């Protein structure tokens, strides 16, 4: 007995400290003093908080949100699964796992309140639906959070799925917003939410009108659902917010469609389709005939209808609507497109706003298209300028020009293998690509083209032989997969004017590069000795030779120059296109077109040709954006026809310089 008492005492003594630690935490739930504010709400709803259900938790979250200080922190902890319930008395605590025990803290003040063994506490894990509700309630607090990042995050969340309940908190947070930028964003978001969820139609119309002809995608995204319509059929006058009444038989709404609509609304029986007719007849084949008509004769629609009518008369198949019945039913109804939005004032304002916006959008799209065309034109210009130079001076079409472009791109890739800084590597790659392709061009001129003087067709074929050899060589060296040529970081991203007009920095850089080359080329051609000699050889090689110019040397240099520019174009193109052995081949035909359209021997001709080809391609693509193949087809057709009227290109050499 004494032993037992001793053991009891010992165990009690051992348990005491634990008990002492556990005692205070009971206060939030079971303390005698009446609870206030958040603590009271938590105590009242402890059970629901511990086992939240998406359907019933809404009011409790609202109550917590309205309970005053500590509410946002509590909600956050709840959503983050940092709350726990003590099983003994259903008390709610902030819990933190620490070894074999949980540290408990007060859910309102966050003050540490001791610890409890693992099995005493069950963690509260609200499901995703409940967490969503909590997050929605939190937004209200986050909108006025001291942390600017949190306010931004709340705005982003709201713009994704804001609802009517956010209108008031959002409006309330605007006057106290210290940051001007966020304030503007909040006001814009408030307007957008008002358009969709505003209370009175006057509010909503005012919100729509406050945007004017705003170009933002979000504004159009708010307007479009308001203007969504469904087609409905009515026996009398159309009801609801009617967008437009439809008359069957007009284009866009045929009688067929009208009947289908009636069938869909269960106002008319479905029509007998050909497949049904066939199935019905096949089900009634008797002795090689249907309703007395031999099978072999049932290969025309008329005979089949006859057979069906016979079966129908015999009561073997259900009656099918005849054409006359269909027409009658269609005529007996009225049809209309009905707005999903019931408020007519709002839809009218939205339609007007969208109309004024769409005009501006179209203008902006035109500007965007012009930018696109400009960038494409500068790419073609860069790719074609080398071709034009060699063709102008030597009357040689270099079919391997595309491979020189590829060579430049691969040079950039190899440079990046050794220099990891992208900015530096591009700066190294540009001159290096020029040097490599210049050398290749000079080698090709000396080894092949020089021996084929005045045989342009054979030169074309010989350079083609070089082209296929080089292409396969690239494949053997670099493999068939695309190699990366990464643009430096400061070229990432795009210059965005608004939601419609934007252009990536790489394309701007290419445009600038094209301008630089235009300037450089003009300078070399008109201000240097080399340019003078090149022009002389272009105009009349034999006369130039008799004036002491060495045409062979000039030919070699121009060929190298043209190839070098191709190499630089290759680096530029490689920055945004995939670097494969076929990179150049993709641009070569367009480059030929540019040269042919522009005319040879004049840099302005190449520029005009590139603008025409690039602009045309983008323009046709804009007319039929889903089909870029068709755009290219039509562009080439246009060029073939264009050549009819200007066989020597836009800017042709005249007089003796033309050579014929």
């Amino acid at each position, binding site marked *: 007995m004494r032993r037992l008492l001793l053991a009891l005492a010992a165990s009690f003594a051992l348990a005491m400290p634990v008990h002492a630690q556990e005692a205070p935490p009971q206060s939030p739930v079971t303390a005698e003093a009446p609870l206030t504010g958040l603590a009271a709400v938590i105590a009242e709803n402890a059970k629901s908080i511990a086992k939240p259900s998406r359907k019933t938790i809404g009011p409790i979250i609202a109550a917590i949100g309205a309970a005053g200080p500590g509410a946002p922190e509590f909600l956050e902890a709840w959503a983050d699964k940092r709350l726990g319930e003590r099983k003994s008395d259903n008390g709610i605590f902030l819990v933190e796992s620490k070894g074999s025990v949980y540290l408990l803290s007060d859910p309102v003040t966050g003050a540490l309140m001791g610890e409890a063994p693992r099995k005493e506490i069950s963690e509260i894990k609200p499901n995703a639906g409940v967490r969503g509700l909590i997050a929605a309630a939190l937004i209200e607090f986050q909108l006025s959070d001291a942390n600017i990042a949190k306010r931004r995050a709340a705005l982003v969340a709201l713009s994704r799925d804001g609802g009517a309940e956010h209108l008031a908190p959002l409006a309330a947070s605007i006057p106290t917003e210290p940051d001007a930028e966020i304030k503007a964003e909040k006001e814009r978001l408030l307007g957008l939410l008002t358009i969709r969820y505003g209370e009175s139609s006057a509010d909503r119309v005012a919100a729509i009108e406050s945007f004017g002809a705003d170009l933002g995608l979000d504004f159009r995204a708010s307007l479009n659902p308001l203007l969504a319509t469904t087609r409905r059929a009515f026996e009398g006058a159309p009801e609801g917010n009617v967008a437009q009444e439809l008359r069957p038989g007009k284009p866009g709404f045929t009688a067929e469609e009208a009947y289908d609509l009636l069938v869909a609304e269960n106002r008319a029986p479905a029509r007998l389709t*050909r497949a049904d007719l*066939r199935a019905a*007849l*096949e089900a009634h*084949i008797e002795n090689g005939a*249907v309703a007395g008509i031999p*099978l*072999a004769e*049932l*290969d*025309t*629609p008329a005979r*089949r209808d006859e057979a069906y009518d016979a079966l129908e008369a015999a009561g073997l198949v259900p009656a099918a609507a005849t054409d006359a019945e269909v027409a009658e039913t269609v005529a007996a109804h009225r049809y209309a497109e009905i707005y999903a939005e019931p408020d007519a004032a709002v839809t009218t304002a939205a339609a007007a706003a969208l109309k004024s916006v769409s005009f501006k959008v179209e203008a902006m799209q035109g500007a965007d298209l012009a930018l696109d065309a400009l960038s494409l034109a500068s790419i073609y210009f860069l790719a074609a300028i080398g071709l034009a130079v060699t*063709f102008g001076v030597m*009357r040689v*079409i270099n*079919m391997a020009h595309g491979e020189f472009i590829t060579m430049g791109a691969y040079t950039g890739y190899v440079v990046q293998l050794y220099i990891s800084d992208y900015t530096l590597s591009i700066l190294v790659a540009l001159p290096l690509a020029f040097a490599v392709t210049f050398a290749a061009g000079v080698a090709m001129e000396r080894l*092949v083209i*020089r*021996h*084929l*003087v*005045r*045989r*342009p*067709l*054979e030169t*074309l*074929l*010989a350079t*083609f*032989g*070089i*082209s*296929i*050899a*080089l*292409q*396969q060589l690239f*494949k*053997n060296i670099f493999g068939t997969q695309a190699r990366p040529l990464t643009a430096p970081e400061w070229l990432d991203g795009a210059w965005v004017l608004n939601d419609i007009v934007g252009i990536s920095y790489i394309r701007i850089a290419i445009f600038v590069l094209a301008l630089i080359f235009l300037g450089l080329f003009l300078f070399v051609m008109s201000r240097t000795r080399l340019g003078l000699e090149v022009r002389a050889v272009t105009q009349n090689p034999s006369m130039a030779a008799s004036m002491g110019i060495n045409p062979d040397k000039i030919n070699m240099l121009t060929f190298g120059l043209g190839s070098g520019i191709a190499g630089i174009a290759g680096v530029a193109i490689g920055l945004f296109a995939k670097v494969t052995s076929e990179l150049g081949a993709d641009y070569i*035909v367009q480059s*030929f*077109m540019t040269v*042919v359209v522009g005319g040879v021997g004049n840099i302005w001709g190449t520029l005009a040709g590139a603008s025409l080809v690039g602009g045309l391609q983008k323009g046709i693509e804009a007319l039929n954006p889903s*089909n870029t*193949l*068709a755009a*290219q*087809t039509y562009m*080439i*057709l246009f*060029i*073939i*026809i264009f*050549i*009819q*009227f200007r*066989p020597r290109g836009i800017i042709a050499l005249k007089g003796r310089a033309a050579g*014929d």
Partner: protein
Amino acid sequence: MTQGFLSKNPSVLIFLSALAIFTLVITFLSNAYGAELISTSMVKTLGKTLCLCLIAIAMDLVWGYMGILSLGHFAFFGLGGYMVGMWLMYARTRDIVMQSSAGLPLTPQELSDAIASQIFGVVGTSELPAIWAFAGSLPFQLALVLLVPGLLALVFGWLAFRSRVTGVYLSILTQAMTLALALYLFQNDSGLRGNNGLSGLQNIPGLAWAGQDRLSVWFLWASALALGLGYLAAAFTVSGKFGSVMRAIRDDEARVRFLGYPVEGYKLFVFTLTALIAAIAGALYYPQAGIINPAEIAPIASIYLAVWVAIGGRGRLWGAVLGAAFVSLVSTWFTGGRAPDLNLGFYTVKWVDWWQVLLGLSFVMVTLFAPKGLSGLVDMFDGLRPPQRRGAPLGPDDGALQEREAQE
């Protein structure tokens, strides 16, 4: 006339007899009619090669004799193939639909719907495009084999020659034409199954009983016949006064015009004639190949055609045939993986990877050092040696080729 024609062109008889002997030998070695020494796929390859020889003759006429470097003749070849392929595919699908239908006989509408959904299901439509209106009728479709490419050549040639586009401009323009056509056909809504192309063409409707063994030999005969007739027609074209004018246009176009010849008319006639020959070659080629898709008419194919003719020796009909047969067969051998690897000690040359490099470089060599191509070898055998010309102009005009200089 016949006497004179043959004596002026001794190569015609030699060529025709060589072709006949070749065809007979293949027939007696084939699976269907003889010793079973040559596989059916080999017979097909040889048959296809004969078709390529035929289009090489067309290319030689227009380039070697006329001086128009057309980089678009494979467009006509492909169009011919498409036209005959439409009938093959339609008729075969019709047979399949008829066989699989049970119960009621099909109405014409149902039949055409079923065929359309069979053929065009792959591009997501089930309506028969308007251009398939005649696909059910063999005679119509065979007429289209000639009409469509012929009309395209006529219109394109008229536009191009009328505005006096010549030289490299014309080459680029023909290349643009074939690129435009290829891009157009690549679209799914072009009505010719987009990049899927037409397939199953090796199954000839109504001749299923014959089996591929026999069909392959029949197509070989047909291709040999077409090649023989094409050779005759081409030899006849270039032999008389007409041929002299053709060569004159090649060597100095302006002078011929000043002499009063309608240069544009000559050019247009030859361009269209060669387009027709190319179309016939294509119509025979694709039933043997079994599939046609737009990649076949990409510009590169036409450039290869020029390569064949140049390597064989342009300006001679048999040179073109020789080049096409030689290069395409050697290509097949090298790219088929059957050529043994070449071990250089430090590097093993795999011909699948390096064949194109070799072809490209040898092509450059041929243009540089042997403008007569393989046919120059025959000249050497005959004791005719070309002068060392390197760099010196060949003739009075760009692109001129003097055949007779070797005999001086």
